[in-house]
């Protein structure tokens, strides 16, 4: 952990780790696409791929996390979406990432999920901004729904990431 944070160059080992993470995120993303969405509200979903993002935020440097996220969004849009999904994801993820990176400084291993909740809400705010630009102010109706759903989804992904992190830390 300490070596990871202090090293400037990306070693082959680290690159492999990041690639693996990206792949995992992509798989989660595609799997979620296949699941039927029980709530027919545009923008509401669990965001399984964010488990990886949250995990990465607490383990790697900002630039590295950004790489994972950008590649995942780009490839994810190629697999299962359109130009539109790309824009939404991009706006949401970047805002979320920014918030999470700031929140990392005030959270620890036991409060990752709190940062994740706020990150998810930020993600939704980013999406909402794009949606308002595209579909007009009417979609603001969904903002409270997205925020509530974001809290639940964020808590879920956060706890999962926390679990993953603690398990991996325990083993290594």
């Amino acid at each position, binding site marked *: 952990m300490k070596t990871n944070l202090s090293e400037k160059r990306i070693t082959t080992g680290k690159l492999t780790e990041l690639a693996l993470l990206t792949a995992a995120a992509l798989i989660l993303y595609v799997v979620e696409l296949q699941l039927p969405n029980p709530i027919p509200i545009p923008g509401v979903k669990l965001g399984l791929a964010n488990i990886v993002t949250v995990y990465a935020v607490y383990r790697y440097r900002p630039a590295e996390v950004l790489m994972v996220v950008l590649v995942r969004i780009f490839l994810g849009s190629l697999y299962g979406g359109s130009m539109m999904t790309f824009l939404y994801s991009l706006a949401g993820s970047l805002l979320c990432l920014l918030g999470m990176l700031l929140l990392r400084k005030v959270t620890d291993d036991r409060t990752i999920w709190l940062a994740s909740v706020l990150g998810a809400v930020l993600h939704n705010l980013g999406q909402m901004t794009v949606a308002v*630009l595209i579909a007009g102010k009417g979609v603001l109706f969904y903002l409270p729904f997205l925020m509530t759903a974001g809290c639940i989804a964020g808590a879920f992904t956060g706890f999962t990431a926390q679990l993953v992190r603690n398990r991996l830390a325990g083993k290594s």
Partner: protein
Amino acid sequence: MAKDIRTEQKRKSTYILAVLCALVFLGGIGGMLWNLTRSHERQVEILQDGKILYTVDLDRAEDRTFTVTYEGRTNEIEIRNHQIRVKAADCPDQICVHMDWLESAPIVCLPNHLSIQYADGESASGLDAVAN
């Protein structure tokens, strides 16, 4: 000693974060309830790219079906018994079709940049009054 201060700070920021999360969550629920219970007019707007294509007065509208096109993709909109819905669409997610008849929540088809919503005095397109 220094460690004590740091843990103390950490505890405080955790507390603030938790309160914040709770506020957002409760605010979201409150907003949902408020949005759902708010009364609305019977004037419905069909928007594409935020611009009004049609305004429909559901109380007086006759039953009909018509098509709205966006970059070659279509949404088939149906008005029946003073209700409105997207009957069929060739967008990938079909969320707009699953939303069925318009209730308080706007029907949105993001891939086709379409939204169907009740007119609202506060929306960019809402009318403040109608001259007679």
